[in-house]
């Protein structure tokens, strides 16, 4: 190989050209493993942020040559304390492009293809090109979406999974000094939706607390953000809050401080204001390095079979000492994404459509973001409610207040639910008997 030099792969080759008692049972030591990594294997890295930068470096140094990276973000100054492929001069440029340039320059022969885009911009045919997909995302919705995509791509023949349709997914996540890494074999091991309860639902302060009984500095900031901004329109009509605009933040900070003083609440600071408005999650270089390393090691194992992959979940926390916990997350029998068991809803005729929507959002098992519901009446599609398209939302909003009976829904009716958390709509069977708890 022309890019290579003597000794380049000495470290890697020991694992690929020698076997050992702890190797994967199917492992055959051979120089072909390295050629596969160099010439054939294609890896998709989703996210070029904290985890993504480390993942690209790790995979490139392991010998993976053909890497693609997707990221829709541009570089911000506050990324630089950990996203080490970016410099001050790169601020404002797309992360995927700068990361790819850096890796391609530093690692001889490496070919990182950047995609400055959203994952939703690509279709199945794009994802099908890859052998393994690694996620370094900070968004649960995006994780769930790609999970749904990979499960949707599975092919079954007479109920037996066609192995060639399976693309393993390695997923990492970090927050402060905590992190986790997992391996998902779609259709075989627990998927993201199977373990949705591992992600705590986002906590929002009740509106009445914010409006009437603030107690914490956060309540004051939320008051300004949610109630005062739309009322006072400080930067003109129709101008929403831009968390990166220092003028916006300064206004919110000062008004929050005013409100806090009024109630004798201590603790409103500019940093806290910024944190609440931008929903900032603390992040350090070290945790990202750790989790990316675990994920990249798992990609290496899956691609080469040099060892058995992680089965299937690892938790990490280094606040007090260094703690790891590795366990097998279990597949959920009635998982809405990866099981073939149809989902059922139990509601009563007098429940309103809004109750179904609320249930989909609030239930820990679904945690949807803005579900839309369609159904089929006499063979025709009928949209009951859709939030994502403004004109349809306006036309279907009335339905929310109607009871299921008024909407003409009957026992056993199939409802099709679409949501940003999944690329494919889900089918629910309506059970209009007893109401579920």
């Amino acid at each position, binding site marked *: 190989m022309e890019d290579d030099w003597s000794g380049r792969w000495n470290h890697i080759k020991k694992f690929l050209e020698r076997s050992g008692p702890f190797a994967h049972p199917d492992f055959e030591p051979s120089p072909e493993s390295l050629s596969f990594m160099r010439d054939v294997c294609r890896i998709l890295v989703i996210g070029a942020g904290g985890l993504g930068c480390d993942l690209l470096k790790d995979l490139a140094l392991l010998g993976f040559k053909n890497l693609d990276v997707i990221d829709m973000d541009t570089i911000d100054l506050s990324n630089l304390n950990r996203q080490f492929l970016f410099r001050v001069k790169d601020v404002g440029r797309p992360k995927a492009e700068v990361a790819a340039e850096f890796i391609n320059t530093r690692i001889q022969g490496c070919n990182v293809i950047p995609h400055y885009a959203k994952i939703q911009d690509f279709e199945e045919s794009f994802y099908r090109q890859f052998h393994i997909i690694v996620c370094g995302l900070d968004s649960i919705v995006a994780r769930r979406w790609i999970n749904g995509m990979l499960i949707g791509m599975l092919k079954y023949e007479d109920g037996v999974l066609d192995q060639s349709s399976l693309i393993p997914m390695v997923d990492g996540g970090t927050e402060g000094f905590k992190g986790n890494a997992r391996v998902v074999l779609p259709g075989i091991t627990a998927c993201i939706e199977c373990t949705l309860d591992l992600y705590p639902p986002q906590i929002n302060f009740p509106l009445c607390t914010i409006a009437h009984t603030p107690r914490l500095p956060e309540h004051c900031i939320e008051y300004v953000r949610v109630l005062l901004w739309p009322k006072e329109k400080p930067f003109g009509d129709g101008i929403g809050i831009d968390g990166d605009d220092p003028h916006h933040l300064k206004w919110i900070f000062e008004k929050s401080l005013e409100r806090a003083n009024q109630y004798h609440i201590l603790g409103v600071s500019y940093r806290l204001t910024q944190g609440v408005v931008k929903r900032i999650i603390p992040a350090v270089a070290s945790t990202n390095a750790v989790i990316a390393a675990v994920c990249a090691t798992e990609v290496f194992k899956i691609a080469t079979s040099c060892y058995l992959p992680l089965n299937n979940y690892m938790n990490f926390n*280094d606040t007090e000492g260094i703690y790891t916990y590795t366990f097998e997350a279990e597949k959920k029998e009635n998982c809405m994404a990866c099981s073939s068991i149809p989902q059922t809803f139990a509601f009563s005729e007098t429940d309103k459509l809004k109750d179904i929507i609320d249930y989909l959002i609030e239930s820990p098992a679904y945690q949807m973001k803005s579900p839309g519901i369609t159904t089929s009446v006499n063979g025709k599609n009928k949209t009951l409610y859709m939030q994502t398209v403004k004109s349809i939302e306006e036309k279907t909003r009335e339905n929310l207040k109607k009871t299921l009976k008024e909407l003409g829904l009957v026992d056993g009716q199939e409802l099709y639910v679409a949501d940003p958390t999944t690329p494919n709509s889900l089918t629910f069977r309506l059970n209009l008997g007893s109401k579920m708890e």
Partner: protein
Amino acid sequence: MNTMEGKDKTNVDKNNKYDRQLRLWGDHGQAALETTRVCLINATATGTEIMKNLILPGIGSFTVVDGQKVLGEDAGNNFFLTKDSIGKSRAKVATDLLAELNEDVHGDFLEEDAEKLLDSNPDFFSQFSIVVATNLCERALSKLSNHLWSKNVPLLVCRCYGFIGYMRLFIKEHTVFESHPDNTHEDLRLDRPFPALVQYCDSLHLETMTSKDHSHTPWLVILYKYLQEWKKQHNCKAPNDYKERNKLKEMLKKGIHRNEEGVLEDEENFEEAIRSTNMALVPSKVPSEVEKIFNDPSCTNLHSESSAFWIMARALKDFVDNEGEGALPVRGTIPDMTADSERYIQLQQVYRKKAAEDASKVSQRVQQLLHSIGKGADDQVEPLRPFMPSPSSDGHTSLFSSVGLISEHEIKTFCRNAAFVRVVRCRSLVEEYDNKSTKLQELVLHLDDEEPDDAVFYVLLRAVDRFYEEYNAYPGWYNDQVETDVSKLKACLTKLLQDWGLSLNIKDDYIHEICRFGAAELHTVSAFIGGVAAQEVIKVITRQFVPFNNTYIYNAMKQTSITLEL
């Protein structure tokens, strides 16, 4: 508005650049980091990965000590060495590429073998806040660790061997009071309410207040009142088991208002009181970790060299034994709860004020103690945050600067964290390498199972060191010697276990796998250790969070890890 083009480094807003980490260790943690000098011995992949994760968050400076030239295999697994650098000084190339990561950090290097430097100028290493060493052989490690131990310079030793990562921390004593524990009990004192709390609760009357006020009375007050009621009926005793607590919860349930039709009103505060009963009834007591610190000789026998931590720990102990009546100072924070703003803030003030009073009593004790050990107002005390380098007479920066007396702010912080203060004392290498060490005997507990835990890799790495000492090469280094090395390594292991007096049977599988590794350094194992090691350095420097004690093993084959005290 995001473009920073044309801005030079002096214009980069550090608050913004470091924002995501300042939220974890604060401006004072960052200040400690920015005055730190780190020495890296050997710019291996593991070494440069550690430095990367220290340079990004902005340590003051680093120095790379490495006498080797870059080999092809180094450039193959190290992000901070390139093909063009083959044959050049590994120290220089790595320093250049590392320094480029963050313009706030100053980097330099010394192209010299660490072991030789130890012989010629051992004091070179004493100038650093901490020394990080990677892939040192046993002989060099012994010299280095003995020297730094005597100079009281912390040392972190890291090693990546195949799919195994290893770290060992050497630090005589590390004291922490900002440990930032993840889950903490609230400190509410319902079991021993202080007068101001009693007074406040008594000033509110659930029976006569409007229903709006009733449903907005903080649950703490409600629970206090029902608890008093319970005690009246039960010989002044609080509920002390599950059954009794449930009865108290029943009483609380009965207190929820009903509307005209007799249906229970939605009183979230009562629900919270019921949910919080178990937590709030846990008796306030001094945690055992803190008790241990109180009984530590450093706490009981203060002397003129005592550090600020121990002086405060002693003041805390004296407070507990006297005016605290067996309890730590009140922490002064309460959780959020359903309440109107006014009464929540009043209640919060009650706790805050008590905390301030307690802290001021501790502060008085600190002043008395300083006086009793002969420290006047202008004398120095070994500060809480060391490593604020100040030039000393011999031209080196001294570890302990003249920050002076203990500030009120520090005493307040200490009191607020009183339940979470920690002392970490690592054992020295001499102690670890003592064949009679009881810690070695305790390894049996990890290894006598059919499936030993990751402690087995500690033993194997020690056997590898034996092998290296004997054959001057690592087992499995050469492709054609893997098989013969297996039996040689097995002999080393047997000898080692004999020396330790352990009769253990370690499966041959492990020996084979270690020979398969052939001392290869897999980049991602280095990257993992690079992350955890950097974080441990940050803990040592900032004196926040709690470092591991003292040996950490990472098994990338299974993605498991273990911490051992050796």
